[in-house]
């Protein structure tokens, strides 16, 4: 009897059992990352959130776009503080990107049989997502929360602008280190990825150039701790790598006309595009292009269901011909013919001559039996090209000008001028100096295409001259108190019943007065 007990005791001690349960009929963190296919589902979520969040910059787009008349958001454009406080803005979209990226990085070690290249691909997407989100948070909100990872639950405190930008740089550098160039990007089946939203080495480089250029400018503007000159040099360094094709092959389109066809033709990848938000047509039958700016400028003839007379009542951002003539004094500039429809003819509506935006030429229509033209307009058919090579040239020119390297700045400016067939700098029309000329060149190149004008104005300190309404009368103290950023979003510290859920956050002093 004793022997039986003794033997069974030994048997018990020599066996072991695992108490970790693996769910068989549910998806949890522990079993959703086992294979690359499952890991890819999280990477897909990161891309989805980037696609739906980055282009949504309604408040700054309304304040900053070049337009003579806008149909709605007039008070917002004048930066009426009460209108701004009550308008719809939230940073949740960025934190969705950040959370999913952190989730991927926290769990990627669970994935079995992941080769180093594939691991670099997924880690690169997550790090790029983090870098991009922190950069845009710092740009739009200033102080923001830096989360530790995807599992800690606690009321976070805000980190200062400098810390958020530093976090953005850290993640962007990690992405830069691991990602391959765009021609080597493949999905998990080995097929080449052709959309320019998926991050590659070039995308990370462009992000770094943008972050450093922004960081240098706000260090000077807000008297932050840091070395602005060093930041400009870093921006120039990364811009140079892109221009010299060291991080991927990018070329300027041959002419503005070719650029426009590429902008509207997403079949062949735009050789100039570095980072675009992909127009995901297969998602549903109601999906619209992520480029809201382009959509707001569109009118007849791209809108086949409208006539010229409908422009004043249905096109959100309207441009007078006189404004465009002032912007492009040089009539040899081929951009006039390419970006605007039939530039030579008059387009008169109610006594005013309008410039018809023609940068994006294709639209998607759904058949509609109730409309007079038989179809209803859904969206412009285009990706949202967020950064293209021309942007990097002009960014490098801007940073070189701030560093005092005028010769290099002029050289870059003239690359863009020559591509557009315009007169080189300095010409008879360049009367306001190099810094302003570079800024105006950005306006000319990106008109009707993206929301970058607000950020360009902030970097160059043209708030009082180029913006309107309250911007013109902001004092220096107002700017230091956060007038140029969006207020702290309400849903960051209150739940939908009004209870305070995070009492560590502070509203910016400028907006506190209007709360």
């Amino acid at each position, binding site marked *: 009897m004793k022997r039986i007990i003794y033997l069974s005791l030994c048997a018990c001690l020599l066996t072991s059992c695992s108490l970790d349960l693996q769910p068989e009929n549910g*998806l949890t963190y522990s079993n959703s990352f086992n294979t690359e296919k*499952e890991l890819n589902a999280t990477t897909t979520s990161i891309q989805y959130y980037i696609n739906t969040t980055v282009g949504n910059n309604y408040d700054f787009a309304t304040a900053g776009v070049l337009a003579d008349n806008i149909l709605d958001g007039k008070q917002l454009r004048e930066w009426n503080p009460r209108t701004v406080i009550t308008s719809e803005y939230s940073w949740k979209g960025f934190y969705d990107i950040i959370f999913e990226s952190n989730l991927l990085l926290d769990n990627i070690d669970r994935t079995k049989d992941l080769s180093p290249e594939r691991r670099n691909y997924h880690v690169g997407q997550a790090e790029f997502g983090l870098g991009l989100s922190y950069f845009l948070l710092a740009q739009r909100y200033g102080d923001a929360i830096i989360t530790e990872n995807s599992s800690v639950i606690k009321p976070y405190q805000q980190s200062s602008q400098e810390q958020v930008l530093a976090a953005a740089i850290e993640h962007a550098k990690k992405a830069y280190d691991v990602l391959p160039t765009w021609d080597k990007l493949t999905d998990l089946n080995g097929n080449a990825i052709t959309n320019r939203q998926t991050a590659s080495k070039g995308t990370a480089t462009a992000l770094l150039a943008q972050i450093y250029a922004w960081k240098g400018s706000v260090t000077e503007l807000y008297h932050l701790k840091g070395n602005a000159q060093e930041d400009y040099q870093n921006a120039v360094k990364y811009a140079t790598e892109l221009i010299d094709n060291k991080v991927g092959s990018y070329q300027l389109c041959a002419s503005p006309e070719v650029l426009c066809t590429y902008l509207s033709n997403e079949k062949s990848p735009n050789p100039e595009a570095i980072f675009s938000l992909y127009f995901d047509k297969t998602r549903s039958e109601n999906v619209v292009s992520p480029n809201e700016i382009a959509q707001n400028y569109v009118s007849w003839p791209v809108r086949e269901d409208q006539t010229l007379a409908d422009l004043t009542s249905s096109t959100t951002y309207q441009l007078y011909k006189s404004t465009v003539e002032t912007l492009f004094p040089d009539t040899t500039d081929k951009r006039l013919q390419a970006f605007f429809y039939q530039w030579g003819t008059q387009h008169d509506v109610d006594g005013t001559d309008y410039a018809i935006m023609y940068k994006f030429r294709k639209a998607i229509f759904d058949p509609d039996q109730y409309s007079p033209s038989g179809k209803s307009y859904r969206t412009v058919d285009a990706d949202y090209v967020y950064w293209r090579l021309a942007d990097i040239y002009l960014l490098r020119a801007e940073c070189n000008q701030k560093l005092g390297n005028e010769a290099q700045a002029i050289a870059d400016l003239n690359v863009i001028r020559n591509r557009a067939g315009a007169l080189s700098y300095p010409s008879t029309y360049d009367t306001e100096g190099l810094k302003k000329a570079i800024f105006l060149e950005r306006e000319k190149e990106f008109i009707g295409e993206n929301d970058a004008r607000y950020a360009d104005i902030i970097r160059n300190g043209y708030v009082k001259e180029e913006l309107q309404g309250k911007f013109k009368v902001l004092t220096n103290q107002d700017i230091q108190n956060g007038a140029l950023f969006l207020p702290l979003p309400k849903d960051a510290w209150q739940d939908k019943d009004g209870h305070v859920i995070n009492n560590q*956050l502070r509203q910016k002093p400028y907006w506190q007065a209007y709360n």
Partner: protein
Amino acid sequence: MFVGVPSSVGLGWAFSEERFMKKLWWLSFGKLRASWGKSGQKFQEPYLALGVMEESNIFNGSLGLIPQSMANKRLTWEESDQYDVGLDLQLLDYRLKFKLDYYYKYSSKLLMQSYLPGNVFLATSMWDNASAISNEGIEFEAQYDIIRKKNWNWSVGLNLSHNKNMLRKTYNGEDLNDKVLGRPVYGIYTFKDEGIVQKEEDIPMYPNASGKLTPLYFQSVNNPLRVGGRKIKDQNFDGVIDDKDLYYAGSTLPAVYGGLNSHLEWKGLSLDVLFSYTIGRKVMNMYKNSAFTFTKDFGVIMNYFHANDFWTPDNRGAKYPSLEFADKDYIGQFDGNVDSNIENISFLRLKQLVIGYQFPKTWLKGTFIKDANIYLSGENLFLITNYSGVDPEVINPYTGKDDGTQYPLNRKVTLGLNLKF
């Protein structure tokens, strides 16, 4: 992780065995009991502490996966503490038995969705062991063997229960949208009826934003209160009657409920009867009233139009308001959602009646059948109640409101034969 060991302790004192109790000849057995127990139960949703993922979002043809709610590694089992005090008495040579119990159960660490401290977590809520509910009540059971002979016996029994519950804790110490701390978990929420307005002076007037006096209105300014309409108390004095003016009118639990049973046996014939009863339950009959809410929907009208009286200037004492308020936007007028519609009902139902006959073994000798019995049983045979509706037993126990969407319990008669081979 469950920290704590489920344990229980019980004490009993059979005081009838004590020497000083032997004098009481009628007390056959008596016992006093007390017990305390702590137990834990797993919650129903699986895998919550591991962080559940769900499919969502499509990008470029691939499906994405995101967490359904924030994973909370600190989740533990739900705990219950129960105290029980009881008395067992058996009298008159074990013929009359009583059992009385009082219990108090405190369930804590109940799962609840609470808000996250911010919107930087993708999900908007997380599961937490945050709420607590207490339950207490009395249970009483009595049984009497009326006849106890060899060939026939007859015993009757009665049981009775009373239960009360209360919400004790929430995740942030504040009331929830539909449950209030310190009150029963489920209650009747309805409007307060202040009678039909007879004179224009009785209509409450409120100044609106531009200072003009407007009458009390229902949901929107297009529906003002006029003479002939039912005056509903504006609980928050904001000039509009809407969901914010619902008040707690009582618990939906009955005062007492239980059953009566009887078992009679005579030479192989048996008769079992079971009654169930409820006394003192607050309910509201919604469909009889809502029959008069004229909407464009075509449905069954569960009330007599001609047999009811509606307010007119000549008929000021009518039961219902004027017919001009028979519109679904005029809440509280014809939809029955007023506290004057609360009925305090009781009912007695013959739940089950079984007549059976066990064939004597002598009849079955010689056949291969070992045992046989035949029975006739009826369920829900009749109902005695003071409720104005069809079946008080199917009224929603959470809201106490009978909206006429539940089928009444059906009456069943079964004839059966049991054979054992």
